C-alpha cells in the first residue's frame, strides 16, 4: 500500500527537508521499515532499542492515534496519511 507520511521538523534532516514523503507498507511497522530504506536513520529516532514506538512520539494513521489501534501492527490502507508528532504540553 502506498501512503504519505508527514515528517515533523526534527526529523526533516533525514528527508532532505521534505515535510511529507511517500512510503509503502500494509502496517505501520512496514511503513517505518520502508522509510528507513529511503531515509536512513529515521527508524532509530521513532523506535527505541527494543523496536517499540518511543514513549514521547505520537503516530496517527489518518485521524487515529495508533495507541488506540494496534500500535505498530496498525493497518495502513492505500492512500492513508500518517503523521508523526512529538508530544506537547497541556493547555
Amino acid at each position: 500500500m502506498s501512503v504519505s507520511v508527514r515528517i515533523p521538523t526534527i526529523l526533516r534532516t533525514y528527508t532532505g527537508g521534505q515535510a511529507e514523503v511517500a512510503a509503502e507498507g500494509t502496517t505501520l511497522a512496514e511503513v517505518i521499515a520502508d522509510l528507513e530504506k529511503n531515509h536512513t536513520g529515521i527508524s532509530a529516532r521513532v523506535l527505541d532499542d527494543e523496536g517499540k514506538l518511543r514513549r514521547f512520539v505520537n503516530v496517527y494513521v489518518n485521524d487515529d492515534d495508533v495507541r488506540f489501534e494496534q500500535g505498530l501492527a496498525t493497518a495502513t490502507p492505500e492512500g492513508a496519511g500518517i503523521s508523526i508528532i512529538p508530544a506537547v504540553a497541556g493547555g
Partner: protein
Amino acid sequence: MAAQTVASTTDTPNAPAAPAAPPVDLGPAVALSCRECGERTPLSPSFACASCFGPLEAAYELPTGDPEALRKAIEAGPESIWRYAPLLPVPADVAAKPNLNPGFTRLVKADRLAAELGVTGELYVKDDSGNPTHSFKDRVVAIAVEAARAFGFTTLSCSSTGNLAGAVGAAAARAGLRSCVFIPHDLEQGKVVMAAVYGGDVVAIEGTYDDVNRFCSELIGDPIGEGWGFTNVNLRPYYAEGSKTLAYEICEQLGWRIPDQIVIPVASGSQLTKIDKGLQELIKVGLVEEKPYRIIAAQAEGCSPVSAAYKAGHDVVRPVKPDTIVKSLAIGNPADGPYVLDIARRTGGAVEDVTDEQVVEGIKLLARTEGIFAETAGGVTVGVAKKLLEAGVLDPAATTVVINTGDGLKTLDAVAATSGPTATIRPSLEAFRAAGLSAH
C-alpha cells in the same frame, strides 16, 4: 545581589576576548536539555529532542554560594512571580516590561476544611484563582511571552482547554503581540468569552483537545506557522518553567519550608512535573532544607489515564477519550504522564481519580468551608484529598497543600444546577417567616 553561577569561565587571563554574547537573553537559562536522554542544544524555540523525542527543558546556571543573600533579594522583590527571576528563564529586567505580573497568590490556611476532612496537621489551599485571568496559566504564559520576545515572534498562540487561551489572549494584549488561540469547539462558554474578549483570534476546532494539539503541532511544522510562538508547543521548554513558581511561593509562604504533602491536578502533567523540579531547585540553591515530601496527582475519573497506569503498575500511559465535566483536565494523551508516575512513586505519593459527582462535592465543600470558589480542577484536588484521607493514604497529621488552579466562575455549569436560591418569596416579612429561614 550579584549572583554567582555554577559554571566557571574557562578563559585564561591572557586568552582573547570571549566571542559575542549569546543571541538570546533568558537570564540563568543557558541551554535546552532533553529530559529523557540528557542531550543538550542551544536555547531555541524547540520542544522535542531530535534523538529520542523526549521533552526539552531549560537548563540553568543557578545562583550558588549565598542562599541568605538570594533569599533577601527574593523577599525584597515584586509581589509577583518576578521575585523569582534569578531562578527562571527570563531576563533580569523582566519586571520592568509590560506584562500581567501574575503570581504570589494567597496560600490559605484552611482550618475549617481541615476539621471537616479530619486533618489534624496544617492544611493549606494554594489559590491560583487570584491570578490576572483567574487561573495558574498566567504564570506559564508570562514566561512564554519573554521567550516569544527573545525569539522575535510577533504572534502568540496555543492549543488550549480554555484557561491557557484566556491567559494567552490577555498577556499578548498587554505585551502588544498578536494572538491566535486554538480550542476544542465544545468548551465552557465562560472560557470561550474570556479567550475572545482580549481581541485576539480564537479558532474552535471540531475535535478534542488532543486533536487541537495535533493540529497545532502540524501548524508549526508548516510554512504557514512560521513566526508563531505557541506557548505550549514550540515555547514549551520556557512556558512549562512558570509552574515552578507555585513551588517557590508555597515554600516561601510557609516560611521557606517544604510541605509534607502536595495534591496537584493532572492534565498533561506538566505542572506537577515542574512543581517537583521547583522544589528540587530550592533545595539545590539552599533556600529550603532537604526533606522528604509526597506528591499526589489528582485526575477526574472520566479522564484518568495516569491514574489508571499508576494503579496498574505501568510506566507508560495509554491514552483515553475524555468524558468528564472537568474540561481543563480533559487531556486524554498527557505528554508528561510518565513523569507524573515517576514522581508519585519516587516521593511515596499517589495518583488517584474522583467521579464528576465527587468533583462537584469537592467544589462545594471548599466553597462552604473556606469561601473559595474553585473551578472543576480545584474540585478534583479537594475530592482526591478527601478520598485519600479516608483511605488512609494521606497522613492527616502532616502539613498538606491542596492546589486550586482556577476560578469557579469559569465553570459555573458544574454547580449551577445544585446552587440556586434557597427560597423564592414575596418581599414581605410574613413570607420570609413562612419560608422557615428566620433566626428566631
